[in-house]
């Protein structure tokens, strides 16, 4: 039984959510690692799309940016950014939008814009990028981030990308094409939305993690699913592929600097 870090089980667990043939619009960072791990293990035919316009990228090393050359060189084709957002995302061609987040509330609404007041932010974050439309135009959305009270909050400071808004059917008022966030994968477990209230509840914990640990890392009173599961541990094969991918990436990004 290989041992592994919390980031590793989070990435492995997120990768497992993607099926071969799924068309996935990949956010940079954690989602990109997970999506490529899926491609290199159980889902060789997963189609990875990056907002820089690359369709069907098969990078050998992880991109640092959303537009690294590796993504274009290994893509089936590269389209312009207006075409990517209009024909492919807004056009309804994306099965899964895979997003990271800075802040998340219990209804899966995401903040990547500001901490504090918008006009006088205590921390200015990068902003929406493609996320606000990925969240609404993709058929469903997976969210991936490390679990902590700072990130998992009762109320987010700014809704950058809407999830289930104020819960229940409140989101319907926006006539959103996609069905929204269907799972949140963290370093402690997996959260899924209650079918009625749409509040995210703990549906699986990673091995060795207690429910109390997860509650302690959550800024709202986290509910637990009746059928709470336990994530199966990463296989040696999954970990080997993931570690090789990270090693290749580290070396490539260092080399780039002559």
């Amino acid at each position, binding site marked *: 039984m290989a041992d592994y870090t919390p980031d590793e089980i989070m990435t492995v667990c997120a990768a497992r959510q993607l099926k071969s043939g799924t068309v996935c619009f990949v956010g940079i960072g954690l989602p990109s690692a997970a999506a490529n791990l899926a491609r290199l293990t159980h889902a060789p035919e997963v189609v990875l799309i990056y907002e820089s316009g690359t369709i069907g990228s098969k990078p050998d090393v992880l991109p*640092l940016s*959303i*537009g690294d050359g590796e993504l274009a060189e290994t893509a089936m084709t590269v389209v312009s950014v207006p075409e990517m957002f209009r024909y492919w995302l807004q056009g309804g061609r994306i099965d899964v939008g895979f997003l990271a987040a800075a802040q998340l509330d219990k209804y899966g609404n995401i903040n990547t814009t500001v901490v504090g007041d918008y*006009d006088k932010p205590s921390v200015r974050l990068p902003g929406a990028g493609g996320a606000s439309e990925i969240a609404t*135009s993709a058929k469903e959305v997976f969210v991936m981030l490390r679990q902590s009270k700072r990130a998992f909050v009762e109320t987010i400071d700014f809704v950058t990308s809407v999830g289930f808004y104020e819960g229940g059917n409140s989101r319907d008022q926006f006539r959103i094409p996609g069905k929204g966030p269907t799972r949140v994968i963290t370093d402690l477990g997996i959260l899924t939305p209650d079918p009625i209230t749409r509040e995210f509840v703990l549906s699986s914990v990673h091995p060795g993690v207690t429910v109390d640990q997860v509650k302690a890392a959550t800024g709202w009173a986290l509910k637990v699913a009746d059928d709470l599961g336990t994530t199966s541990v990463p296989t040696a094969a999954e970990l080997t592929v993931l570690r090789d991918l990270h090693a290749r990436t580290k070396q490539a990004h260092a080399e*780039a600097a002559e």
Partner: protein
Amino acid sequence: MAKITSLATAVAENINDGDTVAFEGFTHLIPMAAGHEVIRQKRRDLTVIRMTPDLIYDQLIGMGCVTRLVFSWGGNPGVGSLHRFRDAIENGWPHKIEYEEHGHAAMASAYAAGASGLPFAALRGYLGSDLPKHNPNIRWVDCPFTGERLAAVPAIRPDVAVIHAQKADRQGNVLLWGIVGVQKEAVLAAKRAIVTVEEIVDDLNAPPNAVVLPSWVVSAVACVPKGAAPSYAHGYYPRDNAFYQRWDGIARERETFLKWMQDNVIECPAPDSKVRAHG
């Protein structure tokens, strides 16, 4: 017809204080050298537009060239914050800047509308987002057929678009490939356009349906090899990801930033002045 000239002349003749300028590039082909020349020429009161303001915008802002920014994602990709951008927004250093914030889908559509001679772009966007509460340039339009309500943003029509491309021919026709971003739209939406290129060749040898900008939509072409570094030029040199990581340390403090700019930009001639000297 594009004038094939030096970077210094291209900037001097096409970018004025107070202009609205889009230095575009989506990670690939960032017009870094052109931005440095704008800093050396001390342009002021610029409104700068960019979907993904990155290091060159951090530098333009930190050096006081910018009074207004229109953007949709402002960060150092894969690394973290743009410290000069944050310092300006959070602390007003070197002076306060205004900003107009959008999402990528809206800005990409707004550039396409600008290139298309339309006054606005409609999109299925900003649904449930807080941004429309803070940006009066996000409005709504009803479909005259279905009655559906769509988001609307004004077309982007810069005074000047500045891009970097792989090649131009001797008539000033431009070819770019790989991740082409919104550069064609930015150039066609703008009143004037400056293009820096890796090389000037006799024949573009463009493949069918390639992204080609005819000379007659470009104002000036300057040959600036490595003009996109530390970004990259597909087929020429890779992205210097390590430099993007180093920038985090350089830009974090005002002093280290100013020193780096002094040593690496202000006191350096335009790269093509050297290149041209060598012939």
